């Protein structure tokens, strides 16, 4: 083993960071110390291996590609702002698990993110659809033409696909993924759809994009995975149907929704890897909804509030609880049903409930194996959440404060007797009704 001082000398000799005096000292040490010579030989062999790697040259067209992309980026400040929005929305919609540390298994996230809306599952579906619409629109507008158009934008969309292929000047890097998408059958179907073309040329959309505040357009480097949008759309006729609907067009005119989407927490929530699957389930569960219901959902302040940073922060804390996730995973269908229930969503939109979720006691509850077992095994407990009487009860601020601060209540929740009482759901429901009367 070499001494630290000798090792330092060897390393610096290897790196050419040694003065004459030190070099002389090292030579002297090497001459007298076979162990040090062996170590020097080790390091030399390693350096040889590294130096034997082939020299690499960048592709000859790299400079031109960069300059073309830079020139595109320089064309107009407005274009740049819209591009930022594209990045952001790509991040929102396409950035699947990992970056935020959430992990990828959260099949119940749909219910949480949509909590608080009148028909939040509908709204979420539409919001995801809107993200796609806005993404496509922004990609298109960033491509070759000005934003100001009416009908000419429609023609442009079709021309773009039929005519010249996108070049490095058309779409900002990484061009390969963007080009692949723009040349795909999915994009073909989209741009040939009359309703969609109308959306792309919607003056409200254009005006809205121009008004998005700069601070809302920060972050998200995850827009690179453009191919994922293609995958998401390719197997998803429901999504395409949403994109084509007049309701979606009306919704993009709602600034409120776009602002909600721009929040980092909302992006993180919507970036869940299982979102698409859950959206599909939610869509299937919706049935036929009227335009009025859609409009009400999409313009609801509750939706925006549900996507607020504080709500997201609280939900994130719960969501990250491994035991709770495990419990939910045991019976996803039941939980999804409850999570999508109107009353439960309504409860999630309540400030007091959100405050409760943020307390240590509440999180401790969720950590408790008994509670986890309860969630896992007791369908009556699930039903309880969907009961309007129970919702009314937990929306009572005093009840919430008591629940959050009371050690005895916490103990009670964990008690076997309490769990057994939940099994007698009918009786509990009766008691709640009696209280109302």
């Amino acid at each position, binding site marked *: 083993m070499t001494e630290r001082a000798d090792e330092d000398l060897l390393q610096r000799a290897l790196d050419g960071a040694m003065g004459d005096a030190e070099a002389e000292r090292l030579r002297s040490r090497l001459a007298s110390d076979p162990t040090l010579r062996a*170590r020097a030989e080790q390091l030399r062999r*390693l350096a040889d291996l590294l130096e034997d*790697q082939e020299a690499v*040259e*960048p592709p000859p067209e790299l400079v031109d590609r*960069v300059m073309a992309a830079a020139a595109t980026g*320089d064309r107009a400040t407005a274009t740049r702002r819209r591009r930022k929005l594209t990045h952001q929305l790509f991040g929102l919609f396409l950035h699947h698990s990992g970056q935020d540390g959430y992990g990828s298994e959260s099949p119940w996230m749909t219910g949480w993110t949509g909590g608080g809306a009148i028909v939040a599952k509908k709204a979420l579906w539409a919001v995801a659809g809107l993200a796609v619409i806005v993404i496509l629109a922004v990609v298109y507008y960033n491509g070759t033409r000005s934003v100001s158009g009416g009908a000419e934008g429609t023609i442009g969309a079709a021309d773009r696909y039929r005519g010249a292929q996108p070049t490095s000047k058309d779409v900002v890097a990484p061009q390969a993924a963007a080009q692949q998408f723009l040349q795909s059958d999915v994009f073909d179907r989209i741009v040939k759809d009359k309703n969609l073309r109308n959306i792309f040329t919607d003056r409200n959309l254009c005006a809205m994009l121009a008004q998005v505040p700069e601070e809302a357009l920060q972050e998200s480097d995850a827009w690179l995975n453009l191919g994922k949008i293609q995958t998401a759309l390719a197997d998803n006729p429901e999504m395409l149907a949403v994109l084509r609907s007049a309701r979606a067009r009306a919704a993009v005119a709602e600034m409120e929704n776009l602002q909600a989407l721009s929040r980092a927490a909302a992006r993180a929530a919507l970036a869940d890897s299982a979102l698409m699957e859950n959206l599909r389930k939610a869509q299937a569960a919706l049935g036929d909804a009227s335009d009025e219901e859609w409009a009400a959902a999409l313009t609801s302040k509750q939706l925006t509030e549900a996507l607020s940073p504080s709500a997201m922060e609280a939900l994130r804390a719960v969501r990250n609880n491994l035991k709770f996730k495990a419990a939910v995973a045991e019976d996803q269908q039941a939980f999804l049903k409850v999570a999508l229930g109107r009353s439960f969503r309504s409860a999630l939109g309540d400030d007091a409930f959100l405050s409760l979720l943020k307390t240590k006691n509440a999180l401790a509850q969720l950590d408790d194996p008994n509670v986890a077992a309860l969630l896992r095994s007791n369908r009556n407990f699930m039903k309880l959440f969907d009961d309007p009487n129970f919702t009314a009860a937990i929306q009572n601020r005093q009840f919430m404060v008591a629940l959050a601060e009371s050690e005895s209540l916490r103990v009670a929740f964990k008690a076997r007797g309490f769990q057994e009482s939940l099994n007698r759901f009918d009786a509990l429901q009766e008691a709640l009704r009696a209280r109302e009367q």
Partner: protein
Amino acid sequence: MSFQVSADDDLVFVRQCLRGDTVGFRPLVERYQKLLFTVALRMLGDRTQATDAVQEAFVRAYVHLASYDHSHKFFSWLYRILVNECLNVRRSRRPLDPLDPELAGSDDPQRGARRAELRASVQSALLRLPRANREVVVLRHFAEMSYQEIAEVLRVPEKTVKSRLYSARQQLGQMLLGWKGER
């Protein structure tokens, strides 16, 4: 192989760009493309991904040029952007991407299978290093930067650079040459 990691006229070109003259960016791209590409390739192990990362880093640098703090070297700032791009690429790539054949040398059996195998092993070992250690090895051995230059680019003390280099070499030695334990 020797790279330029700073130049007095970097700022001249930067200011030219900030005045709206895109042409001023070309000398900067030409000056640093090879160095950035070398770093990206060794960090990522894939030529296509390295090209994308470098291109995106330059474009980002151009778009956000106004935020560049002139008290730091332009390359240092550019390098940080590249590292972020490389991280993005690594996050998004498939776990079983094959090693770049050019790096592995496996497409040219005439040069000697042993040498190709060694090169592939070295690149593979590089990719298995922790990012911080990989960075210093790449900057030292492939970008041929001095301790001082690496410290400035990474914004860490020189002592940290040396420490990471030592650790990285130990790890590489264990992976490639069968060294045993900590020295």
